[in-house]
């Protein structure tokens, strides 16, 4: 009975002109989206490689220079684009791509794509994630809204009942009929993406496991939608009403709840403005050691401690350049200040995330969105991870430069120049995004929410609609 229901449903769907048209349109859009994203991915990665090597050359060829001048001159960390961004662009458009690494200051990532686009970009981009997250659920609504209502309307429900089939088998047949075309599209899309991505030069970053998990997440999302649509269709008498209800679910899940939750999250746990943030950092910085200011209270204190530690009575007698030593201590204090303030930002975001997760009870879209971005390494957490890695590198660079200054010159020797080959000794900035296992464990709650949606919707489908 499952099989015959399935065959009958599929036949009906293929004969419906609208379904076929919708199907063709979705496939066309997907092809276009992949092509566009692929082109963009190539272009950005090429720029990334070029920028990275040029920047390194600029750093290496500074010539004879005081190490602290080099520290102020600074260098850049560029964010690479990850292969799976081909499928989900995530927040990449809104997060900056380059971080300036200089002395005394932790900078934000600069130049997000969104700021270089017209307001139209805020409608969303034609990317695979847009189609996967918004359009395919809509296709599910279209495929399934009248699964049961049409039986009522055509009077075939009575015939079906007279067959003595169990409702479960009937539901399973219909369920399979909706899911199989969706499954087919998604599988083909992911296979194409996998083949395209595994043929890239920087294949190292891409993994089939990530792609596989991403695939499973989307399939779960679609199963939840299919269940919801079937539940509605079985409970409502008219196709028109079933459609309006299913669509309302789509609107609430995909459009309303994300926006409402973003508003609530922002109001309840706001970020400081850029200027406020800078002012707070400055305030804390002033309370500690300023590497450039030998006259401050903290500098005098440090002087006393160091002199006592080395048992000498003049800074000139120290085995290193105290100016550079103080600079390094100042740097350490400043990096702690930044750590504290960035921790605050992260705390705000962690609390915002809780708001999103709380509201995910109204929208299977939210956990899917977050999981898919995370697996594609295009989520906010990956951005933080990159920014932290860059900061770590900045702190190490400063230590490298200050140590060079301290060891190779004496107190007060600001005219010291490090030789031209010094800069090459600084190891380059390398960044690897978190591994899949790590991502899944930090996204445990999203996985849990999505699984809950899956189980509860199945439960509802099979338990409560027995009385069709």
């Amino acid at each position: 009975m499952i099989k015959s229901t399935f065959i009958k449903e599929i036949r009906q769907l293929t004969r419906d002109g609208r379904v076929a048209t919708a199907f063709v349109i979705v496939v066309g859009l997907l092809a276009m989206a992949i092509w566009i994203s692929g082109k963009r991915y190539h272009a950005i990665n090429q720029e990334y490689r070029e920028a990275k090597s040029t920047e390194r050359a600029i750093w290496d060829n500074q010539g004879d220079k005081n190490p602290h001048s080099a520290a102020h001159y600074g260098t850049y960390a560029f964010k690479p684009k990850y292969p799976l961004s081909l499928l989900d662009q995530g927040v990449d458009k809104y997060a900056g791509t380059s971080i300036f690494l200089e002395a005394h200051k932790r900078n934000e990532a600069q130049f997000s794509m969104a700021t270089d686009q017209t307001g139209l970009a805020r409608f969303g981009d034609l990317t695979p994630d847009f189609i996967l997250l918004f359009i395919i659920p809509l296709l599910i609504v279209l495929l399934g809204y009248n699964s049961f209502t049409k039986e009522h309307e055509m009077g075939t429900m009575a015939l079906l009942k007279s067959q003595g089939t169990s409702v479960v088998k009937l539901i399973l047949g219909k369920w399979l009929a909706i899911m199989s075309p969706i499954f087919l599209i998604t599988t083909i899309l992911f296979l194409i993406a996998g083949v395209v991505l595994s043929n890239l030069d920087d294949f190292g970053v891409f993994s089939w496991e990530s792609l596989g998990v991403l695939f499973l997440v989307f399939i779960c999302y679609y199963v939840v939608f299919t269940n919801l649509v079937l539940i509605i269709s079985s409970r409502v008498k008219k196709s028109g009403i079933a459609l309006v209800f299913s669509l309302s679910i789509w609107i609430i899940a995909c459009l309303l709840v994300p926006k409402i939750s973003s508003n609530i999250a922002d109001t309840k746990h706001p970020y400081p403005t850029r200027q406020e943030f800078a002012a707070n950092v400055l305030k804390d910085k002033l309370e500690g050691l300023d590497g450039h200011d030998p006259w401050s209270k903290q500098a005098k204190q440090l002087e006393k401690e160091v002199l006592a530690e080395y048992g000498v009575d003049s800074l000139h007698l120290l085995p290193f350049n105290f100016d550079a030593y103080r600079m390094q201590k100042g740097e350490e204090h400043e990096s702690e200040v930044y750590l504290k303030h960035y921790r605050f930002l992260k705390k705000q975001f962690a609390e915002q995330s809780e708001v999103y997760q709380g509201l995910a009870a109204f929208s299977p879209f939210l956990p899917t969105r977050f999981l898919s971005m995370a697996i594609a390494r295009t989520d906010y957490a990956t951005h933080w991870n990159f920014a932290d890695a860059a900061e770590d590198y900045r702190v190490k660079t400063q230590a490298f430069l200050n140590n060079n200054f301290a060891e190779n010159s004496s107190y007060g020797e600001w005219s010291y120049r490090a030789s031209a080959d010094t800069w090459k000794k600084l190891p380059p900035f390398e960044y690897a995004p978190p591994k899949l296992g790590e991502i899944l464990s930090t996204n445990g709650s999203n996985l849990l929410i999505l699984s809950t949606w899956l189980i509860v919707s199945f439960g509802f489908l099979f338990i409560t609609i027995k009385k069709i």
Partner: protein
Amino acid sequence: MYKYNFIYELKTLLRSGWIQFLSVLLLVLFGFASFNGSQKVEKRELDIASIKKQVNESDQKMLAQLDSIERGLNVNASRWTIPSGPTAVGNYHPRIAAMPPSAMAFIATGQSDLFTHYVKPTMAGDDFALNFTEISSPVQQLFGSFDLSFVIIYLLPLIIIAFSYNILSSERETGSLKLLASQPISIHIWVLQKIGIRFLWIATLTVILLLGTLLIFGGPIDSGTMFSFIGLTIAYILFWFALAFVVNLQASNSAKNAITILGLWLVFVLLAPSIINQLGSTIYPMPSRTLMINKMRTVKAEVTEKQDEILDNFLRDHPEYAINDPNQSRRFYHRYMASQDVVKKELEPIVNEFENQLDKQQTWVGKLKWISPAIVMQQALNEVSGSSTKDYENYRGQVIGFAETWRQHLIPFLYNNQSFTSSDYEDLPSFTFKPLTPKTSGISALAILAISVVIGTLGIAFSPRVKSSKTLLF
């Protein structure tokens, strides 16, 4: 007959609870969205007020320090922050260049969540590195904001669709169409009448709600802008009713009607904007920011090497500085400011390239926006609330202009080696933002109205009338 129809229709709508339900829904949506928008505006105003207060306090401190210096007292501060030095004033006591929200800012968040609303350009900072973006969670920017513009552009059409997708088909499905067909009335006029009632209801309700929200949340509003905004919204509503009218006349069943109109919604609201945007950025691609950084770094490195030579050239171009200061003492900032000038000139074409491309994309959107009224609406609402790309470009331009004024005001002090005194405080330049005046929405409203009327007329012309009204009935 028309009168009976009208009363009958109104009664069914009232009795089925549709009107009540939709009215409450609209009220809730409009209220919530305006409240959200106004919260953002409020935060923006508070931020600006608090920074103004801070700067005032720091100014008082600066004046006190200047006063002490002028009276020959010792000032307890780091040497380079003492405000008798013009560079200390220029770098540590910058003015605020703020962009206060417009009176109707609560309507559309637009680009306002991407950009900051006040910056403090310093003398030594270079204008290209001025960061105009705001720290905020990119997740929020990705999801967007639940504001009035979202309710009007995305949700209002959906409500209209839910209200009118089955005007004709439900009559047929319940069998009442046959009764109606026996009446001396044209089917077209009858559908038009039914849709007209719905349009009137939603339009009136929207106008009342909009006026209400403007009254509660808006600032002092210029009546011209307000009327064009309301006119535009009505035109947009009419557009969706015109589509619903046409689809209804195609005589299909309710569910199929709903799918067709929804497909149109998808095309106009979701697909057309993203495709036009994609095409725009493909035809006028943005140069690479990362490569711009490379270029900037190279220019700066070259300039740093030639600092002394650049200072010489600068002083040759500005003989007045050589005359005014007999000592000719030249230190770090003299060299630095002179080379900043060179850096700026060298980088200007690179930075302008970004703005040019953005302008071209904007023009492209301006031309193609007529493909979808949703785009027209979005652009107009952003303009009305002062949160469009153009507004932020305007602000950026004004700030960079002001940064130059600030620098030029203090540079003579620097090169003349002249101290900054408390009497110079009054003359410090200050920044006032001059907003753009939105002007296109009136025309847009008329254009959408015209489009809607054309759609409606075409709908009647191409409806299955030719095949006699039988097709409509069965």
